[in-house]
């Protein structure tokens, strides 16, 4: 049984990558096995746990539910691409507020949280808890994750470029 292969090209963490792969390869396996970006984890096989969540063209997507070839021409951001010189505010916040223990679900949870803050820049606690419905964490009991996201919202609001003052 010889498997058909095809070339896939996409942008991952700002760099263009091309690989010759089987079309059935999941994006998460493409990232982990082809690109050695092992910060994205596989925690289940039914798209419940969210450990594999990445950003595709800025949207949080579970990379175990997407074929790599479906991302042809798209831009994928993984946990390794969040840091721009210094930690992303979400990473900083999770560290500050003890939002992780074993760290396995953490990259996916942070990616989910980035999307959440995009939709709700100043979320209520219940918006955060509801917004975490697509991820599972077995260590933290979620409370410090909620605090981390609240803290990140504050850090990100502080970083927002202020509207330029009109020059009279």
């Amino acid at each position, binding site marked *: *049984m*010889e498997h058909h292969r095809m070339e896939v090209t996409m942008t991952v963490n700002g760099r263009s990558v091309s690989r010759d792969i*089987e079309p*059935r*390869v999941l994006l998460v*396996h493409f990232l*982990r*096995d082809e690109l*050695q*970006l*092992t*910060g*994205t*984890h*596989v*925690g*289940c*096989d*039914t798209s*419940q*746990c969210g*450990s594999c969540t990445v950003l595709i063209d800025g949207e949080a997507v579970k990379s175990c539910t997407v074929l790599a070839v479906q991302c042809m021409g798209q831009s994928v951001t*993984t*946990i*390794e691409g969040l*840091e721009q010189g210094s*930690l992303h505010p979400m*990473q900083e916040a*999770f*560290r*500050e507020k*003890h939002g*992780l*223990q*074993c*760290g*396995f*679900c*953490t*990259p996916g949870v*942070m990616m989910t949280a980035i999307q959440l803050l995009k939709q709700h820049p100043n979320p209520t*606690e*219940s918006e*955060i*808890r*509801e917004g*975490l*419905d697509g*991820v*599972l*964490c*077995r*260590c*933290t*009991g*979620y*409370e*410090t*994750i*909620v605090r981390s996201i609240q803290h990140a919202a504050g850090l990100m609001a502080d970083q927002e470029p202020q509207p330029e003052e009109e020059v009279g």
Partner: protein
Amino acid sequence: MMDVLGQPVKRHEDDRLVRGKGQYTDDIRLPGMVYAHMVRSPHAHAKIKAIDTRAALALPGVLAVYVGSDLKDTVGMIPTAWIPPNAEMKMTPHPALAYDTVRYVGDGVAVVIAEDPYTASDAADLVQVTYAPLEAVVNPREATESDKPLVHQEIPDNVAFHWSVGADLDDVFAASEVVVRQEFRQQRLVPSAMEPRAAVAQYNPATEEMTVWTTTQNPHIHRLLMSGILGIPEHRLRVVAIDVGGGFGSKIACYPDEVVVAYAARALGRPVKWTETRQENFIATSHGRDHVQEVELAGTRDGRIEAIRVKAFSNLGAYLSTAAPGVPTILFGLILNGAYKIPQASVDVYGVVTHTTPVDAYRGAGRPEATYLIERMVDLYARELKMDPVEVRKMNLIPHESFPYTNPFGLEYDSGNYEGTLRRALEMVDYPQFRRDQESLRKQGKYIGIGFSTYVEMCGLGPSEVAGAVGFQGGLWESATVRVHPTGKVTVFTGASPHGQGEETTFAQIVSHELGMPVEDIEVVHGDTARIAMGWGTYGSRTTVVGGAALHMATQKIIAKATKIAAHKLEVSEVDVTFEAGQFGVAGVPGHGMSFASVALDAYLAWSLPEGMEPALEATAFYNPKNFTYPFGAHVAMVSVDPHTGDVELMRYIAVDDVGNIINPMIVEGQIHGGLVQGIGQALYEGAEFDDQGQLITGSFLDYAMPKARFFPQFETDHTVTPSPHNPLGVKGVGETGAIASTPAVVNAVMDALAPMGIRDIAMPLTPIKVWNAIHQQGGI
């Protein structure tokens, strides 16, 4: 420099983990590596008639298919490492791959090795196994009936052991004023660490060394067991666990899978990786709990508990997993009186094998099963007497002046102030107001309830002499090496194996406090048998209690040697040397001194050391604890039950714990939160269910209700501090308290809410349909 002991120091491990730079077993990639995929039995009980591997082997990219008969003569049985005494325990022969009979859905029958994981998975589907299915048994009490199929022919009535402690209490119960009887189903749980298990094995034919990276909580125990199974001497076997994505007890056991992977790596001369799927994790990674308990409590009419008697059927699954026999015996039966002064107690445990996934430790391991039982019984007793459950608790809690307290099974509780945590919890809830609200809401057809759990548990496993006496086939001391480098920086090597609990940070805090150096200058190494001489791993809330104490001892040895060097260099008597905040000084001579770092350099240069002293500055200590430690606390759950839907809402949750001295309050709080969610998950959501044929019908996260963020309010936590008197750090352990305490608090709260309907008990988990059915069986609202 600020003393960091007791401070919420941010975690070292997070520097890599928040960047996605952690290294979990599945992240390892070696040159020439190939991939394993297991073929598992779809039947709970069947004879293997034939295995045809031809189609699988014909698939391009497939290197080998191994079946049970390939391993039979060279690979030993997977052993159990806990043999409770006086229990007539019978072993369950457990081949790494079944070659004759399969005994649970998920039992391994073959392994496929291929160049890539997709091909390995494809080929596994092509392995044709012909089974002759047989009748299965899944319930532990039913399995002991004489007409039931046997899981192992060697084990009559499927009873692998029968363990009893305590005297005959028939007379006590016959003479008692009040007897309360209840049966509890302590349901089976799936530990569900977010990282599935994995193993990578590499064999070096030149050195004859085998290295196995695997998801383990105890690499040295793995090395010990695998050495025996594979016939590889320990000095040529290295087990490594770098980052492990949670364990909760499910990564204690030595499983067939890592053994099979090591076998394949040696046979093929290629590194082999195996990573389980979540589906495999559900069926082939150990489960937790699963008891049927028949409980009787005897007491006086005015509220004094006189005796507790328990008969428990503990489901162990198809084979006895590594620590399995110790969980429903020692860790359960010896603490059945909980935090209460109960003069008489007896326990009778049947360890039963069934055609189900093996059961082993899961967070709390035995103590949640005991705590649930006693905390529920206290409530039922209070209800029988029409007394307030808090009053009954106050009457029966072991008073603070009674410590050390010897419980009816001979355990010596080290220290406690149980009334103190209950008092603090009651302050936080305003109990009288809650009762008033409850009364007025009931008149409006609304049902709220409050539940208490005033628990105690035993942890910090444990004194090695006790380990031996209770049949654990290992020691339970812990090791620590403190290596001070010539620059004064420190590497700590611990035999414990943290996997999320944060000891890379808390251990650095201990050393920072004792040596007066910044935490940033201290590195904590764990999880590698080649770097750490020996250790027993992380479970039973023992890492800081036992491993931390070993570290303290090693650090004291460092200080003792460094003090001698400083005295020699400063040309004063050793007794005049002071050591404070990383600086050696001379008593009464301000300004005369030297830093710890310069002493370290002198120790390595060895140009001028005290007469007879060896160079370098390194110390190893082995701490064998004197006793278990006994954390305790008072937890309170407040719930609202919707009688129209059966839905339970957790309104508030208050946890007042006493875990002794606290090294890092941020980490302690995180441990409590995590435990609470697992314990509340057992009360309300989680439960593994098998059908009569032994099929796990809750075999994915679609079917098994893992708790989610929106199920919970903010937890309200507080502490009292009663140090453990026998632990050098005064710590008691915190990893399991939340999971142990919370389950009965929540169920007691729901039963309190439903009390007007006459509902005494509902088997966990208290899902809406069960609650609704219970309400309607009582005639509705």
